[in-house]
């Protein structure tokens, strides 16, 4: 054993004072950095365990989104769904849209159930809770890469050439993941105290897809709906990455920047809420 005095001291105390938002952010950074090994190993564990002993193995990652768009493509081809004027083949449009929407929903879902799923680790180890809450995100980044590969094949199939800006796509979808993570962190702590909050919120949130250009262009006639779509930050967070892939032209750079800011502010609030509440979580898991 080396010299005792040099060792780090961890302090757990009844927190009388309230953390400032900046302090929460700092703490989050420090704790995530400290537990980077854990996040990595848990990711590898979940990833490998998820695919072993499955008939189609890693192929699932590719198959799931393709099956997902099939129903929309079917509706569009029969004329039930009129997605509007997209400028690109509908399967490509809906594939990109649902993929990005999926990123939002799944980052929200994995972060919000992260604590409950890892309840055993929360109770038995001293890994910072925020790290356990966000371990699931690793999988999302992986899915993102696979989806991108599938997309390239899809584009090839329709004989479309992606814009060179496509390499920025992972960066362009970051804000929507950030948004999902922010909401997820808030749900994680509230949801572990009152279990049904997460479910209720996610269900209601699904409705937001209909005021967002995910499976159709959402160019409504109604002026009210029109302004809802216009003020909906998700509109930009989904349209912009799609434009980056297809044309490389961003139609609403200002809207996108504003929406990105909203996303980061929500993450910031989520982290802060998480740190304010997390002490109440362990005993209620």
């Amino acid at each position, binding site marked *: 054993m080396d010299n005792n005095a040099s060792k780090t001291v961890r302090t757990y105390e009844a927190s009388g004072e309230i953390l400032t938002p900046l302090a929460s952010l700092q703490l989050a950074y420090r704790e995530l950095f400290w537990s980077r090994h854990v996040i990595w190993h848990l990711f590898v564990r979940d990833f*490998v365990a998820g695919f072993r002993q499955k008939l189609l193995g890693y192929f699932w990652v590719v198959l799931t989104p393709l099956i997902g768009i099939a129903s929309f493509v079917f509706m569009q081809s029969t004329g039930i769904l009129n997605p509007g004027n997209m400028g690109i083949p509908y399967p490509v449009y809906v594939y990109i849209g649902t993929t990005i929407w999926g990123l939002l929903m799944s980052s929200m879902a994995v972060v919000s159930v992260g604590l409950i799923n890892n309840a055993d680790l*929360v109770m038995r180890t001293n890994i910072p809770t925020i790290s356990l809450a966000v371990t699931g995100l690793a999988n999302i980044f992986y899915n993102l890469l696979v989806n991108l590969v599938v997309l390239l094949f899809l584009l090839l199939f329709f004989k479309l050439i992606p814009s060179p800006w496509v390499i920025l796509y992972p960066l362009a979808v970051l804000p929507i993941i950030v948004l999902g993570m922010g909401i997820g962190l808030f749900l994680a702590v509230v949801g572990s105290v009152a279990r049904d909050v997460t479910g209720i919120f996610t269900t209601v949130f699904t409705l937001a897809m209909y005021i967002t250009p995910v499976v159709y262009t959402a160019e409504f006639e109604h002026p009210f709906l029109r302004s809802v779509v216009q003020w909906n930050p998700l509109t930009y967070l989904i349209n912009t990455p799609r434009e980056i892939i297809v044309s490389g032209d961003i139609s609403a750079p200002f809207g996108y920047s504003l929406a990105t800011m909203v996303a980061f502010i929500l993450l910031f609030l989520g982290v802060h809420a998480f740190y304010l509440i997390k002490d109440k979580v362990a005993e209620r898991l």
Partner: protein
Amino acid sequence: MNEKLWAIRAQGVSKKFGLTLRQSMKYGLRDIGGKLLGRQSHSGELREGEFWAVKDVGFELFSGEALGIMGVNGCGKTTLLRILNGVYAPDAGRVQMRGRVGALIAAGAGFAPMLSGRENVYVNGALLGLSTEEIDGLMDEIVAFAELGQFIDLPIKNYSSGMYVRLGFAVAALSSPDILLMDEVLAVGDLNFQKKCFDYILKLKRQGTAIILVSHSPGAIWAICDRGFFMDKGGVLVDGPVEDIIRAYDDQNSRNAVASSTQFEQAVAAHNDADSEDQIDPEYGHSKGGTGDVICTSVKLLRASMGEAIDEFSFKESFLIEADIDVKEPLEELLLRFTIDAVHYRFITVIDSYEQGLPLPRVKTGKYCIQVQVKTPNFRPGAYTLNLGISRRNIGVHLFYWFGASRFVVKHSQDEFLYADNNAVMHLDCEFNLSPVSSQSTKVSPFSVGDPY
């Protein structure tokens, strides 16, 4: 190690819980609301329906020291351990931990059944605060310690439970923590592996690891710890040498055994309330019954010296049994008999009026008081039940019987340390002697009871 620096320092640590889930959720949501609005929390006070799971615990533990924590279920041991491990945030007070904390409660944490033992070591090791490189370096040692050999690459869902636990223990122990937190984990694996665990824990202790062991096993506490806590209702009731802790724990268990039997009996009595109170049944199968020729109305135990009714005696302390009987019919050749039950054994001894030199050839109707002086009882510390039977020499059945007429606890004494076996009930005064066998002598036992000379 060279400097006397604390490894753990706890000051006024308290933690409260809500009694019901609903209440806990209500308070939880209210606390969350308050926190989000930036209100100060009053976590140091109890609200309705809350209780202290850990109350005002403070201590310092130095490197190389081992603290044993004992207490009956629900006394707050595990909660305290979780606070020390940073799982629960204390509601009052402060805990400081210096260095890496290896929690054996985390042994096997995060194991995924589909992964091989080796893959799981990485996950579990990371959860214990090891970096990937550190785990690389420890891997061979871990495999050897867990005695897994080539099975390390087998998915652990195919492991036997022993292999699983051995692997978990190996990772936790070999991470050479500065502080080791253990919650009843020593009873794993076969005897050789358990021996290895003890050896390893003691080796860590010599190397300067500070150890906290929570256990119900006096043997484990005595083997590893220097000092300890006896906890009750969240507080530290006894803080001292392990012997005192083990005595206090054992006494508490005895008291609880008495209390729970009494409660059970009362519940049964309340249930049977419908069938009259004073009337006794002329059949076996109840706690009290008989023919009605004679009944006993009360059985008391008294401290021999003071004459006060009491239900706790010190080890070897003499006591007095006092029973009031009401003889309804004149009786011949009356036999008064007490039997005593221990927790796990019935009728460990009998005290019979005839045997003890009180023949009762003819007893007239009327009320009597029986007194029995028990001179040098050698019951080991524990809980005991006194039963009463009244019969006649010429009649082979009971005129009256009463199971559980009285209950008492024999407490540990400060002079002797009777830790060896909780199930043992009688203590025999003996003299031990161990002498080497010399080459000439033929008839010397190395292990003899009594005076061999």
